[in-house]
């Protein structure tokens, strides 16, 4: 390309340029501190409207007062000075969306941060939106297969559900969520992972892990780093759900993970206190409940008439020393449709995932469980609860009747079966076979230490031998008598060779 050509091109572009004359609303920065600007002027501005600063930084209006507006700044505020001109854009805060966003890492305002160039977008979605109304919704009835045995069996999650993952630091909350994403391959699900004030090293690790598992093809990561402004942490979950809504509007099912909402609440508390909103309990502002409820209410399952699609939300909350009665945990527990409670004690006992089955519930998920799973897992929760009670009781005396002993042994095996390695999701059919063998007592005479080995062997063997059973589970979601007979025989055969 020679110089003349470039000049010609440039000339043509300049000829095409039309500038519109319009009156703009401007204000002046009165005060600037800690990522907050107080701006005078800007009459007629709306709440949540975007404004621009002279150096290109963006902000959003949060407080509307008589003569001033309070603006939170996204990005570097150190170059903004008192007296700078602030322009209103007339647009409510929005995020660019398109199908090309899949596999990318974007920041809280939708700008790519993975160094793979710009994302071509044609649409923008407002990040704050009223949740879908009652008439557009459908109750939860389709399962989300997380690939984690204890969840799929005891605390099942359905599409459109909001299931809280709660626990202390280092109990495997993120690991659980990442496993769930990894297992969505081929399940017709788009995943959005929202990282809020997390360490960049952790984000990098997660991205690499998802990449390795081939999960980035259907995943978007929205990240607001720990070193970035609190304003970005505050909007990140809303950006994530706006992206999710874009896919839901195409009739797709979306899984969104907010990691984690305690840090989100802290970021919002920081902003609120700087904006001089009155503090309430634990210094959180009065609308911290609404902050989370309006976010999680946007998770839903829409009926066919309104385009179908669903958003399933997995919010994560980090507790301090197992205290689930603190302000934010109780709020989010009451908003969600159940919680998966992870415990440090269980984690260090080697029970991983460290799910406390007694305190974990899924309020709507059981209607989304496939029939076969419901059948095998029906008694499991009760068995485990009885086991915990007996376990404590049996430590005092050695004289136990046979029934109690049997129950204890069964419980030990159940705990063993529900243990699972990280990044090793288990297919639904395999889960059904394993739990069938457990609840029907086929594992009672296998040594506890050998359970894992037995399980592995059984799933491999049965997949080859019990073809009818597997086919029925995949196609009809339930076995017939013929299938059951086949499976029973296969398990007996396998056990003979295993124990020998």
């Amino acid at each position, binding site marked *: 390309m020679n110089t003349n050509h470039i000049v010609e091109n440039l000339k043509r572009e300049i000829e095409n*340029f039309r500038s519109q004359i319009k009156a703009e609303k401007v204000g002046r920065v009165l005060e600037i501190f800690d990522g907050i600007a107080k701006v005078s002027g800007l009459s007629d501005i709306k709440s949540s409207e975007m404004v621009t600063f002279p150096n290109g930084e963006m902000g959003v209006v949060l407080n509307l007062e008589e003569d001033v507006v309070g603006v939170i700044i996204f990005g570097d505020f150190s170059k903004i000075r008192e007296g700078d001109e602030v322009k209103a854009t007339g647009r409510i805060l929005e995020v660019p969306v398109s199908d090309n966003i899949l596999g990318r890492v974007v920041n809280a305002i939708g700008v790519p941060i993975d160094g793979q160039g710009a994302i071509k977008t044609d649409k923008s979605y407002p990040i704050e939106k009223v949740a879908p109304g009652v008439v557009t919704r459908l109750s939860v009835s389709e399962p989300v297969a997380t690939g984690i045995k204890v969840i799929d069996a005891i605390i099942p999650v359905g599409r459109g559900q909001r299931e809280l993952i709660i626990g202390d630091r280092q109990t495997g909350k993120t690991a659980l969520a990442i496993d769930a994403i990894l297992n969505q391959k081929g399940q017709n699900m788009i995943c959005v992972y929202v990282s809020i004030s997390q360490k960049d090293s952790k984000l990098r690790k997660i991205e690499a892990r998802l990449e390795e598992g081939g999960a980035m093809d259907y995943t978007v990561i929205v990240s607001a780093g720990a070193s970035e402004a609190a304003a970005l942490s505050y909007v990140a979950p809303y950006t994530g759900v706006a992206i999710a809504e874009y896919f839901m509007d195409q009739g797709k099912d979306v899984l969104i993970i907010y990691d984690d909402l305690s840090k989100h609440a802290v970021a919002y508390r920081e902003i609120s206190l700087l904006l001089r909103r009155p503090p309430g309990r634990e210094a959180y502002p009065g609308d911290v409940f609404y902050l989370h409820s309006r976010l999680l209410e946007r998770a839903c399952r829409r009926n066919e008439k309104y385009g179908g699609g669903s958003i399933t939300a997995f919010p994560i909350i980090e507790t301090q020393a197992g205290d689930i009665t603190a302000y934010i945990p109780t709020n989010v527990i009451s908003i969600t449709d159940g919680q998966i409670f992870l415990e440090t004690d269980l984690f260090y006992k080697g029970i991983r995932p460290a799910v406390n089955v007694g305190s974990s519930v899924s309020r709507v998920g059981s209607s989304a469980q496939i029939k076969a799973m419901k059948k095998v897992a029906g008694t499991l929760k009760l068995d485990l609860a009885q086991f915990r009670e007996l376990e404590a009781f049996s430590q005092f005396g050695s004289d136990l009747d046979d029934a109690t002993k049997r129950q204890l042994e069964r419980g030990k095996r159940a705990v063993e079966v529900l243990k699972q390695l990280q990044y090793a999701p288990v297919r639904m059919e395999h889960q059904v076979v394993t739990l069938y063998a457990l609840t029907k007592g086929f594992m009672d005479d296998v040594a506890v230490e050998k359970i894992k080995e037995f399980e592995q062997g059984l799933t491999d063997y049965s997949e080859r031998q019990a073809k009818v059973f597997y086919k029925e589970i995949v196609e009809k979601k339930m076995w017939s008598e013929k299938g059951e007979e086949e499976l029973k025989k296969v398990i007996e055969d396998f056990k003979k060779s295993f124990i020998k």
Partner: protein
Amino acid sequence: MTTISNNNIARAIHSATKGKNDAEQSLIFTKVIQFLFRRRLLSKAPDILLHLNKVINDEEGRITAKISSKSKLDEKIKKELAHALTKRYSVKEVVLSEVLDEKLLGGFKVEINDEVIDLTIKNKIGKLQEYLISSA
């Protein structure tokens, strides 16, 4: 927490002094100063005056427009401008205050309250730059 804004004070002064004779007005002014002193608001006086000015202008259907340009505008243009602005804001009178700014390169910029109509070359070049970058 209720605070009295400068705007409120300006409005109060205006409605208190409206239609009063000189003697009454000077009494009111003394009281206003005493009030501001008591409430430690004397440092806010310039801002209050600014608001007062605006309140009076609003009532009399007058607006002030700040015109920034590179060189002095000629009278004819100013007259036309004033006429156009009177129509746009449907007021009786437009008071123009001129500011010279070399950096604008050409054209002019009108600022009324918090509204800006930017017709400078500087702004146009900026927009052209944005356009060329985004169309690339």
